């Protein structure tokens, strides 16, 4: 074995803030990575679900006899084969339906067979008889007296209500110089994960379940799925192979998962269930659509006095996380800008539509569209430019918001000022506004929007923590077992950076293991932009414990104080001058092979962030820190076709501290792409409960030629609690871009669009209507 030459002096080199390639990139770029979708187990069967073609109907009979008899079919199950308990936030969704169907995606029966083709053939042989029921698709209709009842237990069709009040809105309204009202309806979009929904279940002789899953919350998933299987949560093991995108969609249990397990149990063979793309569009969750009614007041100087917001959420037939997005929407309504008096109400209303789940940005994408469009309107009423109006009302470090968020370390004003300056906002804004009435076909516009989001987790469960187990072997190779889930965002790489930094080892000597609830310590899951902050802190603390063990031993041997030593490039060195004391691997072997004094470097940590759950009045400092992003978008509108080309997006974001610029840029650019789709092109068209465009061809996610130029600026506020000062970053870009586009469109053509997406059809029609109106007025 060749021995590397030991250098005599090693300089300190930090890996934090450097451009580091993702650990999983080589396998992904060579096709070596096997996603859940690619997995095959010995004797594995395939499964498919029979979904209804009705939106609301009583099930009179399901006959599976002909399907059972088809050669190659191993099992057919219906609701009779599963526990009666439902899944989801309100446990109102039985995986297989027995009494009635409530949405077009409802699951009636499932088949396990030797091939997918046999499954498909078997599904066609299942006979179902229905009695159709009157259906309802709009919130207002579902709330009307005598509306069809979706769930008998909730005769008013109201699934959830969220209310918050602070101060005296009515008094504030009377005292306001201006009150501006607005309505904003935000639409259905869906995640479009490139890897379609998939599960692979395996059962052992004792009935224990192994589920190969795309989940992004493996530990809580055990608890959530257990009742639907009548299995103890402790007897469920979740294994997470690489996943082809998640973006919040994998934060709940959906019917296909317990169905897949039930088929494995029935057949005593591994069963894999995988969606078609069409099924993915119809039967995976959407972003929560919301109808906002906003009333907001200000003084004649443009100082906000109150916000009064009432929202309706189309909950669809069942309750997943969509119905809880008001927890986040409420935060934006109460805490984004200084608002002395606030009233907020959200009602999630059952209808016969498909249902919404969580989706990157949660309720904040919806809220920020409404609030930031409304802010632009108010600025105009106040006679202020969009930047000045926002600066006047911006939160400052040290503010405590009406919901108790302590904004200790923020820089909204900095973000606004830098974004305005870098984009040359004010002069362009004034110039483009003067072009409204010109006859030029291509019109330019520029718009700005800001947003606030939690950046240090969100304590919505009893714990918002994450655990780490870390060992260093005889060769100074480090293994980190984290509870966190890498869903492609790159947390494994960030964790390796933190660990490499503390232990002074090369990145390539750190292996991150994060794929199995049997080995990994608990974590809430990937959501709320929390993972770098919380899993990063836990990994860092574990590495620090290992570092202390190592340096204590080295100090003893060298007869110096431990704080005089450092770890660099795989060596123990003197901290002040970098002179090598001993190679790390040699020290580790000496510690290991020391007879009765043997020590193996193995440590563990569980990190609970210093945040508090909301009380019953929705007050609480639920995140360990907060952050802002400001986007400016410059667009060109073709006034003949209504087409909008986004030319440049300036993004200024408070990231706390840059850990890996490559990953950070990727998250921001990808987040913007998703938000641009929300603003401009994407809409899951649901008419009378039926999804009308279940394909990429008709749904329109952004493609490479449509993308704008990016100009990214990172503000480093160095959070005192965050790992190396970092804050969570991944949701803000998706949250803030859409209203910047809407505001830019107003700047370009003088028309407001309160309901995204701003499709060419909508824009062209509005321009045409205006032209017709002007023509009539002239006559």
């Amino acid at each position, binding site marked *: 074995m060749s021995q590397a030459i030991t250098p005599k002096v090693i300089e300190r080199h930090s890996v934090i803030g450097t451009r580091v390639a993702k650990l999983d990139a080589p396998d992904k770029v060579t096709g070596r990575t096997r996603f859940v*979708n690619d997995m095959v187990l010995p004797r594995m069967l395939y499964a498919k679900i029979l979904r209804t073609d009705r939106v609301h109907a009583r099930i009179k009979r399901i006959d599976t006899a002909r399907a059972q008899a088809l050669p190659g079919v191993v099992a057919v199950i219906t609701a009779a084969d599963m526990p009666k308990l439902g899944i989801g936030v309100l446990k109102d969704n039985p995986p297989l339906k027995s009494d009635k169907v409530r949405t077009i995606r409802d699951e009636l029966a499932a088949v396990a067979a030797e091939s997918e083709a046999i499954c498909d053939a078997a599904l066609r042989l299942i006979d179902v008889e229905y009695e159709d029921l009157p259906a309802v698709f709009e919130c207002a209709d579902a709330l009307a007296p005598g509306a069809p009842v979706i769930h008998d237990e909730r005769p008013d069709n109201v699934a959830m209500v969220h209310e918050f009040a602070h101060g005296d809105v009515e008094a504030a309204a009377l005292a306001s110089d201006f009150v501006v009202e607005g309505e904003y309806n935000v639409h259905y979009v869906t995640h479009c994960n*490139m890897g379609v929904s998939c599960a692979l279940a395996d059962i052992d002789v004792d009935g224990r379940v192994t589920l190969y899953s795309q989940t992004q919350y493996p530990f809580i998933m055990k608890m959530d799925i257990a009742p639907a299987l009548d299995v103890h949560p402790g007897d469920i093991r979740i294994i997470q192979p*690489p996943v082809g995108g998640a973006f919040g969609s994998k934060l709940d249990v959906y019917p296909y998962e317990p169905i897949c397990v039930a088929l494995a149990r029935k057949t005593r063979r591994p069963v894999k269930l995988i969606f078609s793309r069409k099924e993915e569009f119809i039967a995976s969750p959407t972003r929560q659509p919301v109808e906002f009614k906003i009333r907001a007041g200000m003084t004649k100087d443009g100082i906000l006095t109150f916000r009064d917001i009432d929202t309706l959420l189309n909950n669809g037939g069942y309750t997943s996380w969509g119905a809880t997005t008001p927890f986040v929407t409420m935060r934006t309504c109460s805490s984004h800008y200084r608002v002395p008096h606030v009233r907020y109400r959200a009602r999630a209303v059952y209808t016969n539509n498909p249902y919404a789940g969580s989706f990157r940005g949660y309720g904040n994408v919806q809220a920020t569209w409404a609030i930031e469009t409304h802010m632009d309107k108010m600025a105009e009423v106040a006679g202020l430019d969009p930047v000045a109006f926002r600066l006047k009302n911006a939160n400052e470090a040290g503010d405590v918001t009406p919901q108790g968020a302590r904004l200790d370390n923020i820089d909204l004003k900095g973000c606004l000022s830098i974004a305005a300056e870098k984009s040359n906002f004010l002069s362009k804004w004034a110039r483009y506004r003067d072009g409204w009435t010109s006859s030029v076909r291509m019109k330019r516009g520029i718009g700005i929007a800001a947003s606030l989001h939690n950046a240090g987790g969100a304590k919505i469960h009893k714990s918002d923590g994450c655990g780490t187990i870390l060992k260093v072997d005889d060769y100074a190779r480090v293994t980190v077992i984290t509870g966190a889930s890498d869903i492609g965002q790159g947390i494994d790489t960030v964790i390796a950076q933190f660990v490499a930094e503390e232990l002074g080892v090369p990145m390539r000597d750190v292996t991150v293991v994060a794929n199995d609830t049997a080995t990994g310590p608990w974590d809430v899951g990937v959501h709320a932009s929390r993972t770098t902050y919380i899993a990063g802190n836990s990994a860092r603390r574990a590495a620090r414990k290992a570092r202390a063990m190592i340096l204590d031993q080295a100090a003893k041997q060298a007869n110096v104080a431990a704080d005089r030593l450092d770890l660099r490039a795989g060596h123990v060195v003197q901290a002040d001058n970098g002179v090598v004391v001993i190679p790390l691997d040699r020290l580790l072997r000496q510690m290991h092979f020391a007879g009765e004094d043997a020590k193996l470097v193995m440590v563990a940590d569980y990190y609970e962030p210093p945040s508090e759950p909301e009380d019953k009045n929705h007050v609480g400092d639920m995140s360990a820190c907060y952050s802002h992003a400001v986007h400016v978008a410059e667009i060109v509108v073709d006034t003949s076709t209504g087409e909008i080309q986004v030319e440049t997006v300036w993004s200024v974001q408070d990231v706390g501290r840059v850990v890996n610029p490559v990953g950070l840029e990727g998250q921001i650019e*990808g987040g913007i792409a998703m938000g641009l789709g929300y603003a401009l092109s994407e809409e899951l068209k649901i008419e009378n409960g039926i999804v009308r465009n279940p*394909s990429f061809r008709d749904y329109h996610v952004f493609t490479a030629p449509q*993308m704008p130029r990016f100009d990214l600026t990172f503000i480093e506020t160095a959070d005192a609690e965050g790992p190396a000062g970092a804050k969570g970053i991944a949701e803000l870009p998706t949250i803030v871009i859409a209203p910047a586009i809407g505001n830019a469109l107003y700047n370009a053509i003088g028309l407001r669009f309160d309901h995204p997406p701003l499709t060419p059809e909508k824009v062209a029609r509005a321009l045409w209507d205006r032209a017709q109106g002007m023509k009539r007025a002239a006559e």
Partner: protein
Amino acid sequence: MSLKVDIVFTLNGAAVRASISAGASALAVLREQFDLAGAKLACGEGECGACTIIVDGLSLNGCLMPAVDLDGRRVETVEGLWRETGLDPVQRAFIEAGAIQCGFCTPGMVMQARHLIDRNPRASEAEIRRGLEGNICRCTGYRKIVDAIIAASRAARP
């Protein structure tokens, strides 16, 4: 169950033979019979490019191509780009540029990138972007993918 057809083709440089169902797609045959799971089934209707493979120098959607049409052709998949001499420059550029997040679209992107560079190593950024129009990425916002292709193009110029 269905009619079987025997085909012979060159797969990542090696002569291969397969007995396939007459209606099978090239993608299904590569994935199921040759265990090459790099090309992905993500839509099955030629809209997303996750199944991109190179056949006789042309990039194609493996999900739409009938497997019988592989007969007599030279087929390259992402697995063939990692040679004894190391990774393909496109693969290296993707890693270095950070062009990968979840990675599900990556094999298709890499093959499309390889094809674009082979066709024109001097393509402009706009041409590269147009060349990627049939490949959807939901994670990255495309810039880093374009950056990777520009970097690999530079290296490929004579």
